């Protein structure tokens, strides 16, 4: 397994004054399902288009399997792309769409026939050879786009938000299917999405992007458990932010004063400086509890609940703690009944589940 199969070295792409991609460097492993995740305008699609060859970088270089592809046009690159809108050729039927990219590969007639047959089977579209794009559903078009790219047996498959146009149920099915497909054929996938749940559930590793830069690159569970900054913490899942100030440092722990709640000893994985007010504490909904009786958790605060709104898995509480109004989101399983409104109660937080983050 080649750990630096795709090398992205100091890549920048500027459009006039906008730095769409700003000096980004990282590597993607061979056979990996790799996701670029971020809000719209974060540079993820530009980065994918740079890999495909539809854009050329302002600076930096790109290597795939040891070959510098920075200056190669799209038709000379070992990549194929599944477009966001699928880009199925409307004047060609499914079979001709799939065969489109085989012409220049110098394959024999039999080989072409076999490849088309195999790939149709792979994406479960046997029997649809004669159909045209407007005779297919969204999910089927997505399969055609996938088949058309995979039939060329690229070293890297690029996917630009391919599930965005599908409805929720179909999207969940396709997520599982894409993941299984990728494991079976072993091709490196680079997947662009703005949907954090999608990225987390499918990928081996995820690069979270914002403002043209990589905010964090790690395995999905790491993103959730150990976010490196406030952006990642906020973007991945739900969280509660508490204003904080660091005091003295002590080994891997730091004394932190959290809002009006008092001073606590919190683990400091990110080497955040002492005596800084540019920090924030993040607590995930499942690490908080609301109850009517006092708990024995590390932090247990008196609170008055003004209003609640039930969101399914989570519940949002509008509370007053020590005279401050706050909104907190808590896992629904962590409270015992729903008669909280306008009542006194206790908010409990477990210290080891608090992440200390820099604001910037």
């Amino acid at each position, binding site marked *: 397994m080649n750990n630096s199969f795709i090398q992205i070295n100091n890549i920048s792409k500027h459009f006039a004054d906008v730095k769409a991609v700003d000096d980004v460097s990282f590597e993607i492993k061979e056979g990996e399902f790799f996701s670029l995740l971020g809000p719209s305008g974060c540079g993820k699609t530009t980065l994918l288009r740079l890999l495909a060859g539809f854009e050329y970088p302002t600076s930096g270089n790109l290597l795939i399997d040891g070959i510098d592809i920075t200056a190669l046009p799209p038709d000379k690159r070992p990549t194929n792309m599944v477009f966001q809108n699928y880009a199925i050729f409307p004047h060609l039927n499914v079979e001709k769409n799939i065969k489109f990219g085989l012409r220049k590969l110098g394959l024999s007639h039999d080989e072409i026939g076999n490849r088309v047959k195999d790939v149709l089977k792979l994406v479960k579209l046997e029997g649809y050879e004669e159909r045209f794009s*407007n005779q297919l559903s969204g999910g089927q078009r997505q399969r055609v786009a996938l088949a058309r790219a995979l039939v060329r047996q690229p070293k890297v498959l690029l996917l630009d938000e391919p599930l965005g146009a599908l409805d929720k149920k179909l999207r969940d099915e396709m997520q599982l299917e894409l993941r299984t497909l990728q494991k079976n054929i072993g091709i490196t996938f680079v997947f662009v999405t703005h949907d954090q749940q999608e990225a987390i559930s499918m990928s081996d590793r995820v690069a979270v992007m914002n403002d043209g830069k990589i905010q964090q690159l790690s395995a999905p569970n790491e993103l959730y458990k150990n976010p490196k900054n406030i952006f990642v913490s906020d973007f991945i899942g739900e969280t509660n932010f508490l204003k904080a100030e660091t005091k003295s440092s002590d080994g891997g722990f730091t004394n932190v004063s959290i809002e009006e709640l008092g001073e606590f000893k919190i683990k400091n994985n990110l080497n955040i400086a002492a005596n800084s007010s540019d920090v924030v504490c993040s607590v995930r909904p499942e690490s908080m509890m609301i109850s009517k009786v006092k708990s024995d958790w590390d932090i247990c605060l008196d609170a008055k609940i003004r209003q609640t709104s039930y969101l399914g898995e989570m519940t949002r509480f509008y509370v007053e703690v020590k005279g401050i109004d706050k909104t907190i989101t808590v896992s629904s399983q962590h409270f015992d009944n729903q008669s909280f409104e306008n009542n006194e109660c206790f908010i409990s937080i477990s210290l080891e589940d608090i992440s200390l983050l820099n604001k910037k």
Partner: protein
Amino acid sequence: MNEKNNTLLIYTLLYFVFLYVPVLFLPIFSFNDANYMSFPLAGFTTEHYEEMWSKRNLHKALWASIKVGVVASVISTTIALFAAKAFARYKFRGEKISYGGIMMPFLIPEIILAVAILIIWINLGFKLGLVPVTIGHTLFCTPFAMLILIARIEGFDFSLEEASRDLGENAWGTFFRVSFPLYLPGIVAALLLSFIISFDEFILAFFLTGSDATLPMYMWGQMRFVQKLPHVLALGAVIIVFTTFIVLLAFWLRNVGQGKAKKDIAVKL
């Protein structure tokens, strides 16, 4: 409400009467058995059509018009295709100026264009004839062709061209395998309309033909003799039918596949 609708209906009817009734006199009188355009009608005859077809000069003029029309429409549609693609697809410096420049023959009086070409052509020492007419018609048809093609190309999904590049085709392969087949209805519509504009054009031809008359020139020449009027009417009637057919065909072609594309989007949404 009803009253208002009636007013609009009357207005619409008057408009079409004013527009088409004079034109309808041509076919009516072309079958009238008399040399003068006056009522009452004298009786039905196809004699004028037979007379029309017997004129050798008419055949020559028809052939000249077809030659000029075909060459001018092919060249102007080709130029218009490149231009339309550039305007619809890219943002570039001088975009507005180039657009205005191509549209100019559409706006300046034709007679000025004709005189300008005439002066330059003669000063260059060339002879008048069908070649300068073709050049003039090409200039004149290009803006029309471009407007039709821009309308076609603007709704075009350019990710199809990217997909083709991604699937290993170079720029030429992409043009011939993807862009051209999808632009084709627009291209044919532009060709047909350019041809008709050239076929009907009089002023440029008047200044630039010399002795090789095009069909409108021939008609104009015949009008000076009263006894030749009926067969010009017959010719006029034929041209009206032919032109109407071509224009309808062009408009139908312009919209071919567009409806499908709209349905496509609907399915996606």
